[in-house]
């Protein structure tokens, strides 16, 4: 049965079993592999996307529930002209990722938090950022969120990311 919804501004129709989690439709039917599989029980957040603007762990939502809704994935954060979202830019400036596997989900969670709160407090960051990062990038995630909202990190020292070009 075909199920229609939109992904990153484009209408799609997929022939999937209705109970298939949105995650697998995104990854396997729509080839949007930036959204990751981590646990399958909505515990780690690696699969986080936005559904009608709401932060959603896509591994635990059947695609049938997405019919008619608007999904945004990590690939949809980047503008058509290639300009990165302010949060993605902050992530690069703070050199957040290590293995990088959880970072799509972390970024989607951070974008949702900033859209909801404007400039989140440390306590709001603590409460909202519940995605697991095994590499332990949490201090830089915190400082990147603060930097993205124009707020310098107070508790976490931001790394001095001075680009080096190698010129003499």
């Amino acid at each position, binding site marked *: 049965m075909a199920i229609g919804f939109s992904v990153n501004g484009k209408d799609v129709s997929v022939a999937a079993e209705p109970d298939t989690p949105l995650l697998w439709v995104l990854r396997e039917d729509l*080839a949007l592999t930036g959204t990751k599989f981590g646990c*399958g029980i909505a515990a780690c957040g690696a699969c986080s996307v936005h559904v009608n603007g709401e932060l959603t762990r896509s591994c635990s939502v059947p695609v049938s529930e997405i019919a008619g809704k608007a999904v945004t994935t990590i*690939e949809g954060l980047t503008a058509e002209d290639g300009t990165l979202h302010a949060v993605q830019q902050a992530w690069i400036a703070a050199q957040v990722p290590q*293995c*990088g596997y959880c970072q799509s989900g972390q970024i989607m969670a951070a974008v949702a938090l900033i859209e909801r709160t404007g400039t989140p407090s440390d306590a709001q960051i603590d409460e909202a950022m519940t995605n697991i990062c095994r590499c332990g990038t949490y201090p*830089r995630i915190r400082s990147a969120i603060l930097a993205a909202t124009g707020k310098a990190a107070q508790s976490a020292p931001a790394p001095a990311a001075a680009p080096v070009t190698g010129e003499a």
Partner: protein
Amino acid sequence: MADNPNPNIDERQAAPVEVAPVKKKGVKRRIFLAGSALLVGGGIFGVWWTDNASKSKARSLVEGEGEHAFNTWMKIAEDDTVTLYSPHIDFGQGSHTALGQMLADELDADWTKLTIEQAPADFAFANADLAKGFLPEMAGETLAGLMPDAVIGMMARSMPIMITGGSSAIRFTGEVGMRKTGAAVRAALIAEAADRLGVPESELTTADSKVTHAKSGKVLRYGELAAGAAGRSLASDPVLKTREQWKLIGKPVPRRDIPAKVDGSAVYGIDFTRPDMRVATIAAAPVRGGTLESVDEAPAMAVAGVEKVIKLSDAVVVIGKGYWAATKGLAALSPKFTDGGHSAMSTPAIYAAQAKLRAGGKPDNEGGEGDVDAAFAADGVKLVEAEYRVPFIHHAMMEPFALTGHFKDGKLTIWGGLQDPLSTRKRAAKAAGLDVENVTFNPMIMGGGFGRRFPDVVEIIDQIALVAKQVPYPVKLVWSREEEVRHGTYRPQSSAGLKASLKDGAITALRIDYAQSGNAEGEVPFIYAIPATSRRHFAYQSNQIDGPWRSVNATQLGFYTESFMDELAAAAGEDPYKFRRKHLPDGSRHQKVLDEVAKRSGWGTPLTAGTGRGIAIVESFGTIVAEVIEATVNADGSPKVLKAWAVVDCGTTVNPLNAEAQIAGGLIMSLSAAIGEAITLEKGAVVQSNFGDYPILKLADAPPMIDVHFIESGAKTGGIGEPGTPPATPALANAVAAATGKRIRTLPLLTQAKA
């Protein structure tokens, strides 16, 4: 337990290939010695190209039109692009960028025209420089110094060695391979330019991938010189830059891999796809060592999208059109597995068996010096004893195992992320019953690893080989998180009895008796100056396959020793920092690291009631790290970390921005394990199944402030990926003891604090 716990695993590779006991300070890691011999030429660093058939085949893997390879590590194109081939794989540790900094700096290459790629999984690219680095740690400096380079190169290829691990990329591949290659190629480019211009080499300078003759104003690009320079013989011992001459080494260069990791475009093993590919998932025997007795395939085959059920000796595999179909098919099955005779295996039973072994007093290995028993029996000493225990812990890499395999025309091709591409080929070949030349492995980036992805403990290599051989299409085998948690190759459950004698506030003797599967002697250096020491290993093997977990044995041995140092300080009535300090040689690097962390953390200054500070220092992988943790305890008894400090002496930091991330990340991983992580066994099977019952520390519980400081001692370069991990666990346990007065000697702290 002598039986092979997993019938799918080749005994020779699963079991440690022991070398003679090494009593010298250094690393002996069994994982580097697995495998059998296969030979390709010799070399000084990297592998030099010479005109023989096998090497020209290897050379053809990297050299395209207008490109000139100098050795296995690099090539220069006529458009000036320098390409570095990293034998190490990226799983977040940032070594690709750092290796690039080392090569480009010595080469005086234009950083913007440097490309970093993965070395092909071909035996010609085996990492001799890594063998050269590890050898002194395994065999001692003297013995290693006597070995000709050609012999070391031979060893690397015989292992075969292309690993990512042991915190080795920078200290060995970088220091031995990349820097020397860069310097030697630069010298060859200068020689070529001197000939072309008819001027003495001494009048030429290099910068930004150009050779300049200042007197005449003539400039030659590296791309113009590459063809001629590549035909020259390279100096075997080129002059390296001094620290003052570095332009890239030691600088906070942004990592090359990061942009693709923030826009979703990075392709991990689990993301790989092929036209016509199917997806499979697997359930192995819940009890490691068990086998598949029977399974009725019909319920799975009735699920829409399921195409095939495959029975392995110890597992059942379902192949579907996609992961969801395969998962539903697998869930529909009721396979019957044996318990392999391990039904009595449990967490308490393992601790009891280990205690009995230690009490028996027959160690498998002993390190140390002096007469500990005589010191214990001496008049007027105060004896202190304690027993410590750590559970199995899981790597929990965020990307579950996923390998894609395609068997066609007698050849097997595999795609995915593993810590040693060459061993992966060998293991897959053996499982598939193929010649290794008929197995291709395409390494991809990894969503974490932390020791879980060493081929000698990775059963999914066998599984994909066996599954791919049975189907005509490409198939991606994906482990569920449950499979991942229940079939880990955990840091071993381990326990130790520690005993020391004190006289006049000083330790006169220390004995550490530890029971676990692997022997750690020679791996974890003992740093304190104590007249008599003894560390005895008692081998205990459960039904689990034990694997290296970030920083390997330094984690539990660090926890034992550094917790006990606090207990001894208390027994001596002294401050834990000052007590450690006086047992470290005056003026030593260790003492400086300890002093610095005490200074930065405000050690000794007053804290609010209910808050405590803990300190610990551990050396691992050639790097000395001291950490201070400030913590309190929540109402439910769980520890809450407030602040953390780390001071690191790894000799030289190649990329301080990345080094800071590695130390902070290692520290957080250690806190996570210390506070809440445990894999427990009941009736031989793992109890935990997913992140719900295997809690990983989250952002809210990680210290918001981690102060990482590097001492640039210029000593021999040490590792950076692992050494940040060991001290945090004992530092936290010590902080909790300082805050509450309760000494917790069994991990995880959470369970014990609530008990």
